């Protein structure tokens, strides 16, 4: 069946350092892999996605890496800021299907 899991439940990072959040997935048929950020008391917010035929995509201060060989997805945040403190979810979607499957989340704590 489909599942999206994360390696670490909590990640603490010093302000200014780079953060790396990892995720393992099991559904090789997914077409898109997505990262969402959820701040306390708010709904998830789309950060970046990557199509399954790519291995890297960059956004503003974020980079997503996809390794299909080992079914691994990561989100890199450069120069982590206090505003980056949140729970990060990886998710996946198969084109033509209408549901996005979320993992359990990693809490990122930024230490000032």
């Amino acid at each position: 069946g489909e599942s999206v899991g994360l390696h670490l439940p909590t990640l603490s990072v010093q302000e200014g350092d780079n953060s790396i959040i990892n995720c393992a997935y099991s559904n090789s048929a997914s077409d898109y892999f997505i990262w969402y950020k959820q701040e306390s008391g708010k709904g998830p917010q789309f950060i970046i996605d990557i199509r399954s035929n790519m291995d890297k995509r960059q956004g503003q201060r974020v980079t997503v890496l996809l390794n299909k060989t080992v079914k691994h997805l990561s989100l890199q945040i450069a120069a982590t800021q206090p505003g980056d403190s949140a729970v990060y979810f990886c998710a996946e979607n198969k084109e033509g299907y209408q549901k996005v499957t979320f993992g359990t989340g990693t809490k990122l704590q930024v230490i000032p």
Partner: protein
Amino acid sequence: DAGVTQSPTHLIKTRGQQVTLRCSPKSGHDTVSWYQQALGQGPQFIFQYYEEEERQRGNFPDRFSGHQFPNYSSELNVNALLLGDSALYLCASSRSGRTNTGELFFGEGSRLTVL
């Protein structure tokens, strides 16, 4: 430009009761998805509505039903509430076509507590 709005923000019900949650999608969006998020967990897909029809459904019982109106707004109904239905219910909207990528715009949710 208003984003996704949900109501009510918080509500308390007792077991066996019924609840209706409401969602207005982001302007320009025609597709609405509903998710259930238990404390400390990721959102779980309930169903999605497009053109007033349920297009896809997750692994939720028939007690969970929905509706989409011509103005694209949507309702989620849950009958015969159980303690385990206590969760944050999230509405997400998207434009048909963009849904395939997994880019969703979420509201802030309705926190349901069942006593």
